[in-house]
């Protein structure tokens, strides 16, 4: 019986000690201490099931997908398209044709900017984002504004790291053509009230993309319940491979959209007189895709569904609350972001020790955290800090690991000569 099955059979909550056995890298030591991996918002570790799925593809049946008559190509195609079906289930999308495989969240957002939004905006039209966006949900819109003369508007956030639905409503005007916002902040950990925001935007006829990179690892996501037009996430942040991600798009919108890239696989017929595009999702998947990556992503989705996203959400909510509370008690520490609903990340700064010093000192104790601007420079500016340290949690992290982190933070204080 796999650790997942055991942990589920054990009933009730998630048992991280059992699940940890599924992740080979967690057996590692770093600088003589057991690895405490708290950099999950940057990328998550991979369970054996995901590693095996990719390996199995390459060892047993790998070939290029689609167009193939031979057996291996058919098997590869079945596994690749099977992964699409798993992702559809993961997001509760109505149809597999609404699942576009891309490289990751970044590519998904760029695709929507080019293929959906750009043809629909005129100079002076407005695109709305929030102050807590990742660069990948800022820069594509800035580029679009440069190309089209559209204007980027930003929803402000409170000191706690939140905005209200009314703040978003206030930013929507008669000229708003698109709203793109993050579901869960990769720095503040804030869980945004996406369903209410989508409803508010749609009542004004504004289509919405939600950046789900940091939500999909931590909670169930149902695109029908959210009623969202586009939803993006990355495989590598949900315990799957790198280089594969997903754009969910409502079929009627995808069907109206122009291609993103041109090439093989995205056409129905090509002639020099003119080319007819394929239907979605193929229209947006030019060229040979990341076949083994998609299959690995399918395995990651299966893994999470087997544990249950509700169970993961309940376990992590409790763990992250425990972490935020314990960290806040370290003398001198300042948490960046104190949202009412938090998932995944806890960012902080300390007196004297810069985030990079903190990260180095913790690394010497085997504790992996991230220091820097986390690709959110406007957010750093909002809080008046050049960088933060960030601990971010996943389904395999434990209270003991939180305690190790807190002990490490006391050591940072001691090294810098502060009472702690």
């Amino acid at each position: 019986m796999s650790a997942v099955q055991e942990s589920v059979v054990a009933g009730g909550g998630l048992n991280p000690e059992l699940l940890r056995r599924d992740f080979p890298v967690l057996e590692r030591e770093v600088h003589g201490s057991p690895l405490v991996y708290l950099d999950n918002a940057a990328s998550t570790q991979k369970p054996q099931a995901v590693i095996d799925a990719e390996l199995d593809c390459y060892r047993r049946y790998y070939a290029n997908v689609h167009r193939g008559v031979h057996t291996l190509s058919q098997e590869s195609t079945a596994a690749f398209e099977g992964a699409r079906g798993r992702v559809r289930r993961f997001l509760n999308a109505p149809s597999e044709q609404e699942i576009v495989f891309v490289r990751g969240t970044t590519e998904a957002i760029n695709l929507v900017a080019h293929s959906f939004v750009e043809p629909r905006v005129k100079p002076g039209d407005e695109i709305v984002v929030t102050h807590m966006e990742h660069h990948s949900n800022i820069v594509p819109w800035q580029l679009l504004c440069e190309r089209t003369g559209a204007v980027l508007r930003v929803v402000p956030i409170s000191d706690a790291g939140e905005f209200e639905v009314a703040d978003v409503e206030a930013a929507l005007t008669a000229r708003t053509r698109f709203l793109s916002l993050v579901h869960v902040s990769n720095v503040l950990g804030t869980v945004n009230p996406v369903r209410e925001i989508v409803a508010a935007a749609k009542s004004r006829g504004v289509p919405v993309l939600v950046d789900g990179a940091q939500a999909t690892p931590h909670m169930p996501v149902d695109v029908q319940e959210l009623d969202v037009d586009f939803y993006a996430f990355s495989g590598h942040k949900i315990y799957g491979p790198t280089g594969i991600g997903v754009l969910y798009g409502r079929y009627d919108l995808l069907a109206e959209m122009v291609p993103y890239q041109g090439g093989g696989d995205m056409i129905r017929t090509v002639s020099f007189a003119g080319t007819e595009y394929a239907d979605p999702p193929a229209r947006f998947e030019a060229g040979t895709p990341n076949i083994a990556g998609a299959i690995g992503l399918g395995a990651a989705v299966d893994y999470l569904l087997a544990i249950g996203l509700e169970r993961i959400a309940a376990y992590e909510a409790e763990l992250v609350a425990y972490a935020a509370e314990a960290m806040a008690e370290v003398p001198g520490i300042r948490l960046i972001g104190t949202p009412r609903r938090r998932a995944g990340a806890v960012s902080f700064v300390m007196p004297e020790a810069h985030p990079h010093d903190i990260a180095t000192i913790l690394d010497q104790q085997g504790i992996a955290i991230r220091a820097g601007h986390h690709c959110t420079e406007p957010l750093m500016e909002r809080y008046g800090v050049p960088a933060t340290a960030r601990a971010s949690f996943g389904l395999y992290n434990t209270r003991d690991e939180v305690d190790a982190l807190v002990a490490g933070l006391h050591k940072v204080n001691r090294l810098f000569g502060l009472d702690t």
Partner: protein
Amino acid sequence: MAEIDALYQALVLEHNRNPRRYEVLEPCTHRASGRNPVCGDRVELYLRLDGAVIEEAAFQGEGCAISTASASLMMEIVAGREAAALRELFADFEDVLRGRRGPDEVDLGGLAPLANVRGFPGRLGCATLPWETLLRALEA
């Protein structure tokens, strides 16, 4: 001394807390800004040269303890020296940081407290940023 204690030894922490010549130098003859895009560390460097000799230097910036201490230690070293000598010192410093030579094979003078950065590959750029900025300022 454990590696981490050697990295954050008292002198380094003292320079981080009380960086020398932390100010804007006006007028100056040379200036440059340096930035480490990986971590956001930033340094503004001001020099006043008399002929080839650095008469006065100052800096401001935002960074970790290692980059701040490196800039501060640099302030104590550069006054009265010429570009060529500083280029040599930085080359020696880099040799030690990148493990091409041992810390005992080279006389790093006032930079010796930073020799321990060599055990922390992720932090080399913090120690070298002020120096790279200095050399750029001198080229200008």
